[in-house]
Every structure is written in structure tokens, then in C-alpha cells.
């Protein structure tokens, strides 16, 4: 079972109904794009020294520990991630009609 952030149910709510293969492909693409956007947005908030610190941390820590570290280093961490998700969902919603026809 995949663990995509944006789910099939969310897309269905927008009226995007696809067969399983297309839906999996779309969800995977959206997940990659979202991760890239979130990473870039957070990167803007990190200093050069913090990047070095992250690189060391990522070698020994899991996602939860990295999330805790980010929340300490970037006060608006949660809001930044949420905003990127909302922007992504809004973009998908704007193209819901086209995506439904694909």
C-alpha cells in the first residue's frame, strides 16, 4: 500500500475519477512534485550551517526526528508544508476537469 500525501479520496472529491493505473501514476507524480516544492521552500529558510547540520542528521535520523529538528530550526515549518500542500491541491483542483477526461 502506497503512502502518498495527496490521496485518491481527495482527488475523487474534486471529481477526478481515474482507473487504478492512471490514479497511481498521478498520485506518484503529485507526491514527487509536492516533496520537491516543500523541500525547496524549507531550504530557503535554512542557513548554510543548518544545511550541514541537516546532512549529518539525515545520516542517523528517521523522518520523525528530522521533522522535530525542522520544527526547532524553522518556526513556520508546519505552515510552510501546509501551504505547499494547499497550493498543490488548488492547482490540481483547477485542472480537475482536464484530469478527469484523461
Amino acid at each position: 500500500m502506497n503512502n502518498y500525501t495527496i490521496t485518491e479520496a481527495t482527488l475523487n472529491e474534486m471529481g477526478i475519477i481515474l482507473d487504478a493505473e492512471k490514479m497511481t501514476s498521478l498520485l506518484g507524480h503529485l507526491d514527487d512534485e509536492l516533496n520537491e516544492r516543500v523541500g525547496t521552500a524549507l531550504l530557503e529558510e535554512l542557513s548554510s550551517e543548518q544545511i550541514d547540520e541537516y546532512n549529518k542528521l539525515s545520516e542517523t535520523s528517521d523522518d520523525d526526528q528530522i521533522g522535530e529538528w525542522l520544527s526547532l530550526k524553522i518556526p513556520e515549518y508546519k505552515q510552510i508544508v501546509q501551504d505547499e500542500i494547499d497550493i498543490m491541491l488548488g492547482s490540481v483542483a483547477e485542472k480537475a476537469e482536464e484530469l478527469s477526461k484523461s
Partner: protein
Amino acid sequence: MSEKMPSSNKYAEYADQFKMPDELDEFIFGSAVEHEAEADDEVVEYKEHTSAVGRAADRLADFADRVHESRVELQDNFAETIEDKAERLAGGAKQLGKSAVSGLKNAGLITLGLTIIGVEAGAKKVVEAKDYVSEKAGEAKTAIGDKSEKIADFASESKKGVIEFAGNKKSEVISFFKNKKDEAIQRKLDRQSARKMAQDYKEASRINNQIDRYAEKKARAEEKADRAEKRQQAKEKLAQEKNLANAHAAAIRMNNRIDRRVAIEKMKEGVVESINDKKDRARNGARGVSKSIFKFINKAKASGAAAYSTWSDYDRKHA
């Protein structure tokens, strides 16, 4: 990554440019710093100081230009430097984003919008839907008891109503997500704007501090040049006074010499006069002595003659 993106060393280059103040002491105020090493009471050439201040001012202006150019270049490359940072990031930006999103998902802190709809709007729609179905179900029971054709009509109307309801809900959901997107973009722009303002403020403060620092140094150099000028003026005045005193003393000495010379001349004259007097007196004396001698001689002659005569007379008498 784009080929035109700067390497991470570019940061070091920028950092070096902005770290310049330490080295800049010597670069800009090399001469002034050298002068500072000299003892305050040591007389330094005023002209040298003045030219050092002039050179420092020129170098300060050059530095300000370079800082401005570097700042503009840094701003131009701002988007590039983000990508440059991503290159240094283990796993790239995507891996960071994945960890960040997963961390929040695991903590149950991510909202996908639908949850909010479920709470705020969805719940209302669910209630409406339940009411709608319940109402239609009640009508159905009544209809079943009536005519079968009415059942078909009811089914048709119900289906139409459900489709209509679903359509309304879909457009509402899409509208909701679009609104959320607009709000999120605005927050993102606000953050970028705040970040840029903070960077600008930090940069402006740093440059202002540098300029203040160099202005202080320039003022110190000018003050030092002023002190050197005053010392030089004092030295010149002292030298003038000394020269005047020397000239005065020389004049006095010269007058003294003249006086002495006059006195000597007078003395000489006096001596000469005295000698002349003596000479005259001697001359006169000699003349007197000569006369006396002559007188004596004459007298002696006379005496001798008398004696001779006497003696002759005696001889003759006693011969």
C-alpha cells in the same frame, strides 16, 4: 541543476568580500594605521597625513562601490544560490521535503482540506444529504402505497436530485481548494517578502556599520592630521621664536661687540695718546736731558776747561 548556477564556493567568495573589513584596515587606512603606531608626541609631517586621509577617502569610496556591486550580484544570484544550496543538501530538496511531509503526516498534523470541509462544510452537507434522503424515503413509502408509475417518477426525480447535489458539492470542493491555494500563495509571498526585508535590513545594517566604522577612522585620521598640523605650526612658531631670540641675542652680542670695539678703540686711542704723550714727554724730556747734558757737557767743558786751566795753571806753577 542549471550549468550557470554558481558553485558552493561562490558563497565563500561572497563571504570573503563581505569579510573584508579586517583586511580593509590595512587596505584603506594602511598609511593612517602606520601613523597610529607612532607616538602621539612624535612630530609627523602634515602633508603626509593629509595625503593619507585623501587616499583613505578614495579607498572608502571604492570599497562602497564594490560592496554595492557585490550586493547587486548577490541579489541577482539569489534564486541560483537556492539551487546551489540544494546541491549541497544530502538527497536534494526532494528528500528534505519527503522527510518534512512524512514527519508531519506521522504526527497527524497535515490537513488535506477535505477534513476541514468535513468539519466546516461537509458536515453541513452530510446533514442536508441525510435529510434529503430521509425526505425522499418518506415520499417513497407513500408513493409505494399509491401508484406504481409514481414510483418510476420518484426514482427519476431522486436520481436527478442526487446528481444535482453531487455536482454542487464538487464545484464547492474545487472552489474551496482554489481559495485555499490563493490564501497559501499569499502567505508564501508574505514570508518571502519578510525574509527579503530581513535580509535587506541585515545587509543595510552591516554596510552602515562598516561605513560608520570607516567614517570614524577617517575622522580619527583627520583629527590626527589636524593635531600634526598644530604640532607642526607650534614647532614652526617655536622655531620662529627661537630664531627671533637667537637674532635678538646675536644683535645684542653684536652691539656688545661694537661697544667693546668702540671701547677698545677708545682705549687704543687713549693708549696711543698716552704713548704719544709719553713720547712727546720723552721727546721733550730727552730734549731737556740733552740740553742738560749739553749744559752739563758745556758746563763740564767749562768746568774741565776751568779745571784744565786750573790744572795747567797748577802745573805751570809747580813745574
